[in-house]
């Protein structure tokens, strides 16, 4: 690895912390129970929205009511996205005249965007009309992220409140997440991205005349559609001239901003943020990759402020970084080393002042190695899933890092809101294990952790694990599952394992060689995405409801402090042990065996 590799990684992490600190304290004010400067500023708009929707903003919802409102709202959104795709051919803002999307693909995409996964079985520029992208997908980018933040805030209130029934008001939390956090940040980011060259318009696709005309070779077919043979029995081919290039357009910047900030990840174009119109320069790349981790990192600090002990928030952020940084370095080292196969062919993979070197298959020149690996690690640590390089073409060990980060349960940063409530489930498990060691009833943040909390935390931890393992088993046994593989051998298995892991943890990135836009994959992954999101939220809100009702236990000499390096180490170990025990056997069959056989 080069000095610049380390420099870029270090600057990225430094900038991230620098931005997360003010945002964290700002969000603590947004979700505070008492009115303050922030919530007074937008109070008029808020009240108008509540009045229009017939919502009583002062209603303090119990956990069941909160959960029901969240579920109904998400289901309605899901159905609207489905309907928009099925009807887009007859709706306006479709200058490319794209037809209606198939039923299974629409179902998959609707679940995908409602659950904050943004798995994409389709290519944006060749499938979705501008209207579908704006009113369906972009709106869900906001609302699924706002849902995640709302649920997190309710879970935090479970720890904070004492002998209370309510967890807050879902509608208020949802509205405030959108109006005060996601919308202003998206506006700023979108305009910064346009300045770098990200497109933002409603024009039809443009046509450019190629500087050097090109051609495609196609097989000559007879009237019945069979290939014609020449005298030697080979297929006859002819050259078809290509003199123009289609330049895709659309309102991309506004959607890219929120897909990065809301850990959504669904690209406007097929190759996501590798597309020069989605991510044209190193500066746009830096802004986009910072946006992936910004809100999840800041929410840790919001958490610390809301529970009244900032050290608690820093401990959780430190746990995330303790796992993130070593994996980032490992991924970068693997990609910078290049591949033995290209070395044998005499290709120059050495880093120098004139080239990034390393494994450049599936990477863009402007990003080279380190910008691609920082992104790959960030997008899979957070449940973002956008890409600026093709993970499928990463070296075996370079590709193992993003896959395993997903499999850790999307709690190392994770999705906005969902990552932190996931990590809180792990924290409950960690204090329970510590309690077992000394034979005391475990406590976390002054609340006794008892059988009900442990059951809910275990459910939250185990759902994604079970979905990945069972889903992968089904896919490798089904002929329709292995039909779409792009690569032979162990790498093909990695494609399946990655796809199911991604869906079952609401990430959305892919080893994209897998042709997943088939009824089998759309249904399997649709089910995985749905079950990974909503049952887990219900379990966490049930835990929060039970915690809120409890009395506060003052810390005693036997209480495990949860802001110390010891707790950070314990929590990181619990996350790693669960992830390693569950997935090492599967990883051994995929990237590990590929790495051993590749030399």
């Amino acid at each position, binding site marked *: 690895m080069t000095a610049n590799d380390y420099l870029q990684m270090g600057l990225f992490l430094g900038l991230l912390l620098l931005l997360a600190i003010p945002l964290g304290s700002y969000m603590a004010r947004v979700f505070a129970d008492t009115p303050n400067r922030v919530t007074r500023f937008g109070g008029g708009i808020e009240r108008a929205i509540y009045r229009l929707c017939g919502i009583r903003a002062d209603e303090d919802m119990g956990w069941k009511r909160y959960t029901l409102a969240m579920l109904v709202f998400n289901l309605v959104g899901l159905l609207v996205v489905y309907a928009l795709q099925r009807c887009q051919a007859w709706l306006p803002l479709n200058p490319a005249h794209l037809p209606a999307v198939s039923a299974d693909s629409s179902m998959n995409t609707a679940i995908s965007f409602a659950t904050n996964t943004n798995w994409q079985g389709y290519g944006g520029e060749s499938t979705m009309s501008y209207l579908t992208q*704006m009113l369906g997908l972009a*709106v869900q980018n906001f609302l699924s992220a706002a849902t995640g933040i709302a649920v997190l805030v309710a879970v935090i209130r479970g720890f904070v409140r004492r002998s209370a029934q309510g967890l807050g008001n879902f509608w208020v939390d949802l509205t405030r997440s959108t109006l005060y956090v996601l919308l202003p940040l998206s*506006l700023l980011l979108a305009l910064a991205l*346009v300045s770098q060259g990200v497109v933002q318009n409603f024009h039809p696709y443009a046509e450019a005349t190629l500087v050097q005309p090109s051609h495609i070779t196609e097989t000559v077919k007879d009237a019945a559609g069979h290939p014609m043979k020449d005298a030697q029995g080979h297929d006859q081919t002819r050259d078809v001239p290509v003199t123009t290039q289609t330049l895709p357009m659309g309102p991309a910047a506004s959607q890219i901003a929120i897909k990065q900030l809301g850990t959504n990840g669904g690209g406007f174009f097929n190759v996501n943020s590798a597309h*020069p119109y989605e991510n044209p320069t190193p500066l746009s790349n*830096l802004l986009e990759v910072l946006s992936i981790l910004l809100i999840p990192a800041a929410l840790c600090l919001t958490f610390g402020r809301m529970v009244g002990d900032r050290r608690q928030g820093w401990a959780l952020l430190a746990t995330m970084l303790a796992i993130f940084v070593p994996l980032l370095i490992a991924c970068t080292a693997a990609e910078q080393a290049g591949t033995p196969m290209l070395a044998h062919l005499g290709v120059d993979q050495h880093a120098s002042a004139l080239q990034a070197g390393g494994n450049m298959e599936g990477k863009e020149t402007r990003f080279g190695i380190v910008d691609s690996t920082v992104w790959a690690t960030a997008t899979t640590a957070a449940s973002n899933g956008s890409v600026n390089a093709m993970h499928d073409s990463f070296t075996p060990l370079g590709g193992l890092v993003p896959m395993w980060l997903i499999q850790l349960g999307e709690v190392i940063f994770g999705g906005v809101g969902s990552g932190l409530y996931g990590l809180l489930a792990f924290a409950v498990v960690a204090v329970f294990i510590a309690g077992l060691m000394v034979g005391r009833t475990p406590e976390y943040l002054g609340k006794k952790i008892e059988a009900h909390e442990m059951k809910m935390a275990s459910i939250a931890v185990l759902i994604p694990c079970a979905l990945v393992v069972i889903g992968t088993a089904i896919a490798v046994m089904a002929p329709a599952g292995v039909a779409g593989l792009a690569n032979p051998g162990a790498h093909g298995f990695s494609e399946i394992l990655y796809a199911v892991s991604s869906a079952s943890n609401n990430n959305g990135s892919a080893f994209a060689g897998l042709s997943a836009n088939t009824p089998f994959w759309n249904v399997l992954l649709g089910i995985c995405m749905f079950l990974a999101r909503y049952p887990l939220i219900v379990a966490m809100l049930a835990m929060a409801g039970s915690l809120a009702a409890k009395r506060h236990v003052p810390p005693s000499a036997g209480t495990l402090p949860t802001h110390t390096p010891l707790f950070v180490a314990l929590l990181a170990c619990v996350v790693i042990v669960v992830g390693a025990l569950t997935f090492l056997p599967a990883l051994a069959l995929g990237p590990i065996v590929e790495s051993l056989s590749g030399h």
Partner: protein
Amino acid sequence: MFKLLRASLLMLLVMTVITGVLYPLAVTGVAHVAFPHQADGSLILRDGHVVGSRLIGQPFDDPRYFWGRPSATSPQPYNGAASAGSNLGPTNPALADAVRQRIAALHAADPGNTQPVPVDLVTASASGLDPEISPAAAQYQLARVARARHLDVARVRQLVAAHTQGRWLGLFGEPRVNVLALNLALDAPSH
């Protein structure tokens, strides 16, 4: 339950208006005042015709032009309507075959060139539309382009340098050469 459903529908409607209509329109409006050229795709015009975008690469295989990154889009390379990477895994024999063919094509166009081939010149980009190559990849092709155009190597080197961009602030991203802009400069009548 009915009240909840009604609240959900209305909330979705309000949020759709705010985040799905007002927000993109506001961004579009401000973008077209502040950055009209970028918002419309950074198009390059020659005599009123669009000859490409500064951000989207084009296919080149004539020895007289600098070649860009190999592109995995289909049916033709650099198909702007369907961006795609190859998604070939690092141990896939198909990748080795593709790289071997690309090396052969480079050697066929420039038989005397014995330098090792820079990796970005024989590996497919992530988007299939990468507008840039590394300075190493440009240097590898310098002599061939100069010879094919009967130009002085120093003159071509000067043009390459003029179209090379360093890291942002000397720190972020990678140094790179815009292939389409460089080739258009080569074609410009003043040379």
